[in-house]
């Protein structure tokens, strides 16, 4: 079916090769050809069928005269840098019935459709795997924050609906989002990466050491060092307040991967001539909380703390993995009652999401098996 892709670059490769499209993975044709993966997209994309054909380099069915314009293909290859991919033109040249305005609509539709498929693909098993390779090769760059020590970042959308926001970068070390350094990414739709991808990625590949290159001279937080040694297999940690064997995971994250760029030693301390600027000064620091992390990270383990305090009250303690990764219940003003609420909400959320087409968020561990 995609006979032309052997001769010249496929629409997908040429799309991903465009300037500014460096963050995109090449979605496999298998994925696109599985109708299940395209569920619901037809209504979101104008000229859906034509757009899909273009992405897959499929010749339109109503083609009458084919195979007679081989020479033009050669010329088109040189225009690759142009916004219109060569594969597209080649196909379109054969469609004498189409008018120019139609063509630009299809072109736009194909990009939109590819983006929406891409959003789904990179949260699928093969897609997330492909993104790992790009992550390792640092295709998405590093965190601009000084205290993140050039930690590798991932693309993220702040919205899953296209046309709202451009693509941003998520840093797992400070759990914050940044604008890509190069302006060419400011025309890339964030929805083509989606809100889920980076967090799912780090939940899936829990063995990655996300911390970045930490210079020995930074005098990095004692807390961090303590956590590191606690997580190390030999478990040597004399002065750690928490028994080391207990904290291999805090809320589903290895302690050394829990926002390693935050906490004591990683918070900017404003000074004037060597003297700290007081919090009470009018221009004193107000934002330290944003980069704080408890010295003892087990303080954050709300669920475990709850169950340790209430052990044996009822026999329904869930598995750690079930309660860990996704946070269902939170909000202002109800903090003290939150644990009880979470227990109930946890159950219903799992059911609710599961009902939505086998998408239990707890199921994310399953993806890891691919890696």
């Amino acid at each position, binding site marked *: 079916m995609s006979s032309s892709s052997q001769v010249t670059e496929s629409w997908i490769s040429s799309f991903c090769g465009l300037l500014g499209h460096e963050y995109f993975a090449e979605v496999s044709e298998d994925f696109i050809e*599985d109708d*299940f*993966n395209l*569920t619901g997209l037809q209504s979101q994309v104008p000229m859906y069928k034509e757009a899909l054909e273009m992405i897959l380099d499929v010749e339109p069915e109503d083609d009458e005269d084919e195979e007679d314009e081989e020479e033009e293909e050669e010329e088109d290859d040189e225009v690759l840098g142009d916004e219109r991919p060569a594969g597209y033109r080649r196909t379109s040249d054969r469609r004498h019935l189409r008018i120019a305005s139609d063509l630009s609509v299809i072109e736009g539709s194909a990009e939109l459709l590819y983006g929406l498929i891409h959003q*789904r693909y990179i*949260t699928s*098993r093969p897609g997330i795997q492909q993104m790992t390779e790009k992550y390792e090769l640092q295709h998405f760059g590093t965190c*601009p924050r*000084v*205290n993140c020590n050039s930690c590798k970042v991932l693309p993220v959308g702040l919205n*899953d609906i296209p046309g709202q926001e451009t693509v941003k970068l*998520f840093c797992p070390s400070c*759990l*914050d*989002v*940044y*604008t890509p*350094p190069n302006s060419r990414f400011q025309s890339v739709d964030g929805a083509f990466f989606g*809100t*889920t991808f*980076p*967090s799912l990625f780090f*939940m899936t590949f829990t063995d990655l050491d996300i911390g970045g290159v930490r210079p020995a001279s930074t005098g990095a937080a004692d807390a961090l060092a303590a956590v590191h040694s606690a997580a190390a297999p030999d478990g040597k940690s004399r002065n750690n307040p928490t028994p080391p064997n207990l904290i291999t995971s*805090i*809320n589903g994250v290895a302690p050394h991967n*829990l*926002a390693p760029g*935050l906490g004591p030693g990683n918070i*900017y301390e*404003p*000074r*004037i001539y*060597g003297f700290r600027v007081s*919090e009470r000064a*009018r*221009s004193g620091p*107000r*934002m*330290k*909380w*944003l980069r*704080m*992390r408890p010295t003892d990270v087990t303080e*954050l*383990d*709300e669920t475990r703390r709850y169950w340790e305090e209430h052990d044996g009250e009822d026999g329904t303690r869930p598995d750690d993995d079930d309660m860990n*990764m*996704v*946070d*269902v219940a*939170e*909000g*202002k003003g109800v903090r003290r009652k939150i644990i009880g609420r979470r227990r109930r909400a946890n159950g219903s959320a799992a059911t*609710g*999401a599961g009902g*939505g*087409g*086998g*998408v239990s*968020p707890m199921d994310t561990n399953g993806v890891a098996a691919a890696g």
Partner: protein
Amino acid sequence: MDDFNSDTDSDYTSYWRDWFISSRGNEYFCEIDEEYLTDRFNLTGLNTEVQYYQYALDLVTDVFDLDCDDEMREQIEKSARHLYGLVHARYIVTTRGLAKMLEKFKKSDFGKCPRVMCDSQPLLPMGQSDVANTTPVKLYCARCEDLYNPKSSRHAVIDGAYFGTSFHNILFQVYPAMSPAKSQRRYEPRVFGFKVHAAAALGRWQTDERERMKERLKGARVETGFEAEDEELEDEEEDEEMEGDGFEGAAVAQ
């Protein structure tokens, strides 16, 4: 760095400082006044920091007339740039210097904060040390109060000591109106619409820390400096959570 010699042989009246601050990569520097440079008091101690100090100073103040070979000239040129940087760190905390840097700040000459929630807040250059050759220049965002690496590699090699550890903090003390309102908005990692537990637990802990700080400030009758619309924002959050359940199921296909 462009070569000063070749540029100016035909145009020797143009000032070295003009050339320096308009050179590519030197966009973070402001022009130091002639009066400041010629007042020896302002240069106290720098003669031991800079090789060929007197020649370098002559070059910077446009009175250099030594006949020397290219290699020597290059050495002096290098020293002049270093001297300029060291004087710059002192100059930008003077009234005149602060005013000049404020103008550059207003024009976003130092770039904008890359953090999405900071809404393109203009940055200020700073050093993590006042000692030369320790760390390259960083950029300070007054909205999130954090430090960032310059985007361009041209800027990433500038010595942070040419700006120093105090300048950016002094600027906001002298011009408090330039200090941006602080924002409580933050990014919340989500998976299929649900907040990620580890990040959310940390976020709740940080919120507690922030509220404790606000209480301390209220107790001391100091303005917190947070923007007013933050309260409303938190109300919206709860709606968002409800919608979490309805996230399109097909997204996790295969």
